[in-house]
């Protein structure tokens, strides 16, 4: 690990010693999530969401594998296998299905908080650029997986979601329509599309898991960031991951899983669309088609181009929608401010909250039926989104005067109470207050 004071793994039990000499998996776990990984002592609750995302990935993989045992990937069987077989006939099928359905929403929810945490605290800045970019890769894979999973029940929203989203590709001139037909294996979504979406929906979560490993690996080279953005200087700035952060993550996971259980049991369809309980009908589009809530901001950007200039409006919409995510890959070079944390950047902080409001407005517009003022609002909010990243951030980072940074993490936590600043486990008096400061 990165810090010289990280405790080396010393197996106590002879069996662990035997294993460690042949396949050092215990050493890997100890160094990644055990006492061998020192973490800044001042993390706040926003640092819990990465672990939460991993927990929801696990829930999705487990419930998904079980659901796949009962699902029929055929156009005349898919709808009934979900809504009759799984929801009514399979023992506990309803629970697994609702857990999977809402698990997707919670996975996206905690990931969005995780991403905005990174935006506020400058987690994309050197030396963690690759951590950020691998995270964006995970997010793109999540979007593809979520979309294909939504198609599988083969309801009206599934079908027309597949039609509209594969229709994005037809926006590209000349090659677009052949690509769309190639992706679908037909001229409209049908058996070929359903089967390949099922296959890929099963595959991609494991690809996500693999990229998550790279994401954590890249994170563990410099070590975790922290709310001050100040680098770790010595041992008293850190706490060992276990037992301090395993305990904190565990406690917070329990809270969030409780909320997840409340939604799953008491409002399982709140985040869904009633139209998806109508079997897919290729000859009639529902009056109001929208994607799942976690895609609404992007759907708003897509729809905000109504007039073509140079390129057709439809192509602009598709380019802007993909561009809104791809530009985040360049964030480490758009925001050049040497100060990481938004806590010490008075101007940046205000614009950050404007961006949050802007994305919420985009989400609202993307989910609501279109009328003239929502169209105008969506256009303004889309324009502001790009303005924030391409103009405001570079200017703010060039002209802003940041607030003074604390000398060290310990300083910022203890407010000068240096007596308490001894490393964990080496305290003189049994005050016990340091242990809870994280």
């Amino acid at each position: 690990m990165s810090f010289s004071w990280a405790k080396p793994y010393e197996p106590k039990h002879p069996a662990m010693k035997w294993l460690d000499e042949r396949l050092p998996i215990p050493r890997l776990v100890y160094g990644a999530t055990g006492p061998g990984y020192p973490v800044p002592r001042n993390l706040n609750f926003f640092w819990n969401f990465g672990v939460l995302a991993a927990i929801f990935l696990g829930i999705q993989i487990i419930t998904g594998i079980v659901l796949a045992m009962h699902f029929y990937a055929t156009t005349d069987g898919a709808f009934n296998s979900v809504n009759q077989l799984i929801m009514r006939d399979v023992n506990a099928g309803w629970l697994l299905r609702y857990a999977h359905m809402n698990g997707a929403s919670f996975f996206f929810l905690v990931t969005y908080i995780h991403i905005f945490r990174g935006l506020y605290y400058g987690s994309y800045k050197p030396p963690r650029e690759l951590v950020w970019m691998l995270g964006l890769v995970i997010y793109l894979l999540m979007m593809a997986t979520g979309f294909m999973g939504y198609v599988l029940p083969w309801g009206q929203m599934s079908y027309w979601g597949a039609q509209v989203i594969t229709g994005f590709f037809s926006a590209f001139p000349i090659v677009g329509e052949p690509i769309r037909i190639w992706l679908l294996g037909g001229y409209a979504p049908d058996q070929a599309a359903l089967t390949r979406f099922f296959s890929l929906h099963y595959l991609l979560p494991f690809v996500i898991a693999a990229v998550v490993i790279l994401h954590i690996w890249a994170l563990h080279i410099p070590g975790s960031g922290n709310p001050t953005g100040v680098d770790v200087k010595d041992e008293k700035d850190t706490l060992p991951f276990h037992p301090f952060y395993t305990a904190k993550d565990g406690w917070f996971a329990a809270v969030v899983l409780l909320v997840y259980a409340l939604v799953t049991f008491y409002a399982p369809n709140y985040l869904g669309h009633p139209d998806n309980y109508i079997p897919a009908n290729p000859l009639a589009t529902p009056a109001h088609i929208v994607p799942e809530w976690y895609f609404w901001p992007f759907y708003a950007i897509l729809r905000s181009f109504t007039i073509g200039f140079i390129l057709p409006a439809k192509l602009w919409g598709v380019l802007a929608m993909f561009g809104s995510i791809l530009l985040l890959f360049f964030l480490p070079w758009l925001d050049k401010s040497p100060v990481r944390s938004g806590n010490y950047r008075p101007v940046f902080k205000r614009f950050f909250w404007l961006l949050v409001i802007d994305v919420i407005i985009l989400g609202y517009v993307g989910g609501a039926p279109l009328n003239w003022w929502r169209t105008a609002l969506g256009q303004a909010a889309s324009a502001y989104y790009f303005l924030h990243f391409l103009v405001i951030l570079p200017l703010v980072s060039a002209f802003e005067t940041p607030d003074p940074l604390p000398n060290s993490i310990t300083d910022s936590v203890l407010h000068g109470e240096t007596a308490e600043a001894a490393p964990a486990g080496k305290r003189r008096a049994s005050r016990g207050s340091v242990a809870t400061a994280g």
Partner: protein
Amino acid sequence: MATKARSAEGSQDTTGDGVRRRDFLNVAAVSFAGVGTVAALAPLIVQMSPSADVLALASTEVDISKVQPGQGIKISWRKQPVFVRNLTPKEIAEANAVPLSELRDPQSLAERTKPGKPNWLITLGVCTHLGCVPLGIGEGENRGPYGGYFCPCHGSMYDTAARIRQGPAPKNLEVPDYKFTSPTTVEIGAKG
């Protein structure tokens, strides 16, 4: 660099331009493997294209004898909806009255129908924006302000020749290949 250093030692298998037999063999072997790998990708790519059973549905016959002027029917071709509409003389006149210069995707009604059959307007029922099915073929459905079709998803409006007039769609509703096999039968998907 290493190549140059070694060939400078004057090894016997160097040709006049400094290329060793081993370099040639390396490049040839790796190229061969590369071409082979690319060739092995081909079946993985073509398997995604529409399969024979999908292509077998490429044409479909429709009996249009029961469709009165002013009415339309919606049929399924290649799993996509097709609108077959029998235009009234008034609708034909409205379509012909529009100057082509006003259109986003300029096409006359005559170009979108078969010679001598200007009343039979046959188009895909797939909005050219993002693929929803527009309203207007069924009795009493919203036909929009231009009397043709109205797409409920994003508000594209088509006229009585199914040409885009307003809204985000870039193109007119697509006219598929079709031919009249008899005065009352149309084969959709057949060239002619």
